[in-house]
């Protein structure tokens, strides 16, 4: 049965069809029982013989084809060759194994496999995508911990020469199966662990104070904040500590729920634009988290909400939370790494483009406090 169609924003909980989480849970793929499975992989996974052997052993399909997804942010024109190959294979399952970009790419491939003539206008119209699953279903296997796309109803992409991020939104994009297997994260670089961790933290915190209320995930957001403060640094330092890695993966998935059901705010709105100047998404949201929260703390309601979070944690003040966030980001190298990009942001034309793009971003509307152009410029100035 499809999801209920509601036209008013009532708090609801939506997730992928099934979620599996344990070390070695990749083996669940054996139960797919597909006729033809198209496995879409990141280049790094494809080059990892050990993981590939594991994958080859695991996929339960009569015919399996492996496809490497082009690196970088999904861009429609870069996916066309891959699209042709997948279409020709005619799979009944798509299995995406990789980071957020791989999973988003797989979602886009899936949409166009089912609807080859879908126009861009309809692709980006919120909930404008016709129903999926007439031909195939989707498994998402994240290999990083942070984007939350494995439980999101959207796919971010760039299209045809533009640098502006676009988004396809449909609850049909929630995968049928999600597998969290910490073994796949063993080789993930520390930087990536840090950036993704900060992305998850921003999903949780920005989503927690979002204009969109949703009591169903607020407590989970609080839990994510606590978990990431307690475990992120350890997980980054101990790649083989599968228990810690799984904790972070689980927290990132939970933060994905918060992001999907409440939407983050201006930190994400600006960060989406920074991709254009080459700033990795996790780095951008990590650097913008404190200034954007500080901006929002000027709202009484946000203050009360943060106080509630802290009261169920260790009783600190909003100001102390800002300090702790700054400390974590600093220790994870976020502030230092961001300095590489900072000078470019102060350029007038770039700044203007970022501010304009941020105002159009879907997250901008979810921010709890109304932000003016000068506010956005102020935030940018603070980080540049």
């Amino acid at each position: 049965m499809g999801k209920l169609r509601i036209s008013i924003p009532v708090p609801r909980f939506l997730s992928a069809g099934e979620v599996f989480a344990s070390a070695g849970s990749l083996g669940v793929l054996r139960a797919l029982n597909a006729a033809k499975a198209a496995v879409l992989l990141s280049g790094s996974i494809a080059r990892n013989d050990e993981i590939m052997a594991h994958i080859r052993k695991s996929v339960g399909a009569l015919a399996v084809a492996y496809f490497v997804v082009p690196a970088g942010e999904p861009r429609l024109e870069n996916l066309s060759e891959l699209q042709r190959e997948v279409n020709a294979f005619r799979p009944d399952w798509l299995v995406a194994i990789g980071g957020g970009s791989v999973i988003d790419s797989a979602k886009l491939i899936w949409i166009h496999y089912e609807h080859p003539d879908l126009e861009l206008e309809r692709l980006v119209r919120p909930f404008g995508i016709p129903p999926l699953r007439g031909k195939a279903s989707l498994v998402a296997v994240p290999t990083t911990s942070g984007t939350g796309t494995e439980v999101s109803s959207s796919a971010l992409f760039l299209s045809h020469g533009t640098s502006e991020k676009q988004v396809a939104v449909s609850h049909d994009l929630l995968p049928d199966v999600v597998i969290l297997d910490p073994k796949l994260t063993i080789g993930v670089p520390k930087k990536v662990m840090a950036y993704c961790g900060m992305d998850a933290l921003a999903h949780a915190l920005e989503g927690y104070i979002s204009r969109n209320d949703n009591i169903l995930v607020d407590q989970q957001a609080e839990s994510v904040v606590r978990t990431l403060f307690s475990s992120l640094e350890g997980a980054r330092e101990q790649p083989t500590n599968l228990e810690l890695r799984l904790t972070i993966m689980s927290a990132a998935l939970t933060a994905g729920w918060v992001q999907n059901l409440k939407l983050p705010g201006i930190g994400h709105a600006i960060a989406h634009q920074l991709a254009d100047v080459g700033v990795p998404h996790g780095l951008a949201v990590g650097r913008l988290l404190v200034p954007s929260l500080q901006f929002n703390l000027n709202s009484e309601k946000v203050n009360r909400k943060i106080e509630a979070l802290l009261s169920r944690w260790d009783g600190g003040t909003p100001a102390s939370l800002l300090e702790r966030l700054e400390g974590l980001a600093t220790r994870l190298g976020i502030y230092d790494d961001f300095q590489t990009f900072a000078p470019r942001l102060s350029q007038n034309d770039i700044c203007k483009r970022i501010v304009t793009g941020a105002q159009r971003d879907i997250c901008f509307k979810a921010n709890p406090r109304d932000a003016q152009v000068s506010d956005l410029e102020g935030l940018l100035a603070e980080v540049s």
Partner: protein
Amino acid sequence: MGGAQENKIDALLAMDPYGVEPEVKNAKLLEAMAEAHRWHFENCLAYRRFSEKRDYAADHVFGCLKDFPFMPVQAFKFFPDALTSVAGEDIKVRLQSSATSNVPSTIHVDKITAKRQVRALAAVIGATLGSKRRPFVVMDADPRQAKAGALGARSAAVRGFLNLASKVEYVMKVHKSGGLVLDEQAFCASLDKLSKVEPTEGEPMVLFGFTYVLYHEAALPLMEKKCSFSLPAGSKIVHIGGWKKLEDRKVSKEKFCRDLSSLFGLEDSDIVDFYGFTEQMGITYPDVSLGVKCAPAFSDVIVRDPKTHEVVPDGETGLLQFLTPLPHSYAGISILTDDLGRILPADGGSAWHGRRFEVLGRAKAAEIRGCGDMMAEKVVSNRMGDPEDLASLPQAARLLFAHGKSHVIEGSGEESSILEAPVIEDIHALMDSLIASQEVLRTYSVDEIITLISSVSDRWLDEDSPLAPFKYQGLSFLKSWCQSANLRRLADEALRGHRGYLDGFRPTHGSNRRLLRAVEKGLVAHWLAGNVPLLGMLTLVQSVLCRNANILKTASSFSGVLPLLLETFVDVEIEKNGRVLRGNDILNSLGVVYFPSGDIATAHAISGRADVRLAWGGREAVEAITGLPKKYDAEDIVFGPKLSCMVIGRELLGSDEDIKRAARRTATDVSTFDQYACASPHTIFVEMGSVHGTPKHFGEILGLEMEKALKRIPKGLVDAATSANILSKRLHYDFFGEYWASLGTEWTILYEPEKIELATPTYSRVVTIVPVEDVQEVIPLLDSSIQSVGLGLKDSRKLEFAEMAIGRGVERLPDLGRMTHFDSPWDGMYVMERMVRWVSAGGPM
């Protein structure tokens, strides 16, 4: 009737019928008509109600003849008794038209009317043939055995002419089959006698007969025997009865005159056609020159638009209205006929005064329409006539479209188009080539086929598209139906939730131990009975998606729209994801053919080869098709004749806003496809009991919404016969009930509180509101001939009604305003599912 009017009419009859100046005639005729109107108003209740509903009082002051209310000719078919204006004992004779398949018209004639008829006829015939009595040879059987009291109008017409005969000879006899045959011996003897025997020797004579009988039953046999005659100089051939049957046999007026003048040794100008009709018996209109008629002093003619009934400018074709004050015993003074014609320019130099006009033939008779000819008839642009020449051939299949090439002469509108299409030498070879073309289709994914069809359909309504004129006749709907998202949804629904079954094996029940695949059935034979090109596309598209080969057999009245639609695929190439999708790949797997019903061999060959036989049409048509020999495992998909209605509960009449909403949606359902869809409602059962709105109030509001719907959903062209049908429907309610209607024939809402029953469809936005105390009263009226019941009910009443309705055989219960959305399932089935074979691999579980 007062003596004043008698004098006025007598004065008119006393005039030279063709010698009066127009101004004088107009004034005299207008006065006489006004008096005749008053007479019938005061003496005929039905005429009075008819007039009052149009705001005419007895003493209405008429400014011109165009102002008179006009009675549709059908009134005399259905309500002759109601239209009588004199007491029963004054009626001397009932005249009845000679209708064979239709309901005959009847008029009640009293002494006064009969006398006027004779005078009028004598005046016109005298002016045409001369006042001297002449011998008549009548190409008919002797009518003297006809029963008195109910005299056939044909016989009456003949008798009227024979009043001017000095001598009469009948030269036809009644064959045992009931038809007339020439008694050649009697004919030759008559000619001989009349030309040699005193006192008629050498005198000009009149050969008199009905147009068709005269030519087909008398002249043709004589011509075939190479006979020729030389009638005395000044003789005339006079014929009455109309051209319809001869036109069907492709005999033009020119050929008629040429053949007859040559056969009887006369000039073309000696052959005179008299036009007239039963309802104004006594008034006749001879040719004043070939094909040109002229109204005498005591009648006039007006031409009206079939759709709006507005008077059209001179020269334009429309329905002929005739006015004459002669009828005294029945209210037939102003009659709108279903004959088409046009006003011709005045000829100042002619000795014949009076409005000149031309009769262009009878409006095509309305046919009984089933589901099979919904929408379709509205998009007919160049019908092909019934190719009778083919009907007699044992094997005469014609190729109308194949291999991406149309063989129909586009836009010719010629009836011979089918005959000019190439003969199919070997129907099996054609089917072989279609089946072979499936190989290419198999290389396409279902979504690639959908993409191709959807892309082509996007252009159907472009301004420069030859299809654009059909926008409001169903094409707009077809285009949106062909949009890829819709086709994918249909395919998913029909194929167990996944159209992907068409592209490869898929696991079932979550296990790949058992896989399932949907494969094309093979060859689908479509019988598009009764002009169903657009409907044919709906099933053709679904069959193509399943990658079947398709052979489409069209009806004899084939429309050019289907080839036009198919031609939009010719040479189309669309690049999608590195693959070029070609329209020709689809076209190569389908062919459109025609063969007459007599071509048993072709019918058997196609039916015997088909893996799916798909038939649209009326009961007879679909039964004939399903009765053909077939493969034992062939699938039959039948879209037979169906009707639909609507039920509106009192809960939808709770407030002004509710009533308006329900009326707006009802208007949409009634207006879409002008009611030619099998899902269009013809009867609306409205429940009583709402404090706020009665069924009658709903009817009033519906009238407003029907008017608005005309702008939202413009109406297609209305043929003259449909227009006549609408008028005759209105007439009943004019005389005996209530209705709401547009000024023209655009829409009509009849109110029927007397009988709880389904109304007979009239189509063209004519709907009947039937009040019911409880919607349950509708249930017994429903059966398996009802396709859709639009449900204007809420909550549990909706479910309860639906449960009872399906128990009676109803197949769809859509919401108001959505009745005509072609959906899946349709007629109780998912069409695509019936066009595939389900194949399993592995298992069983």
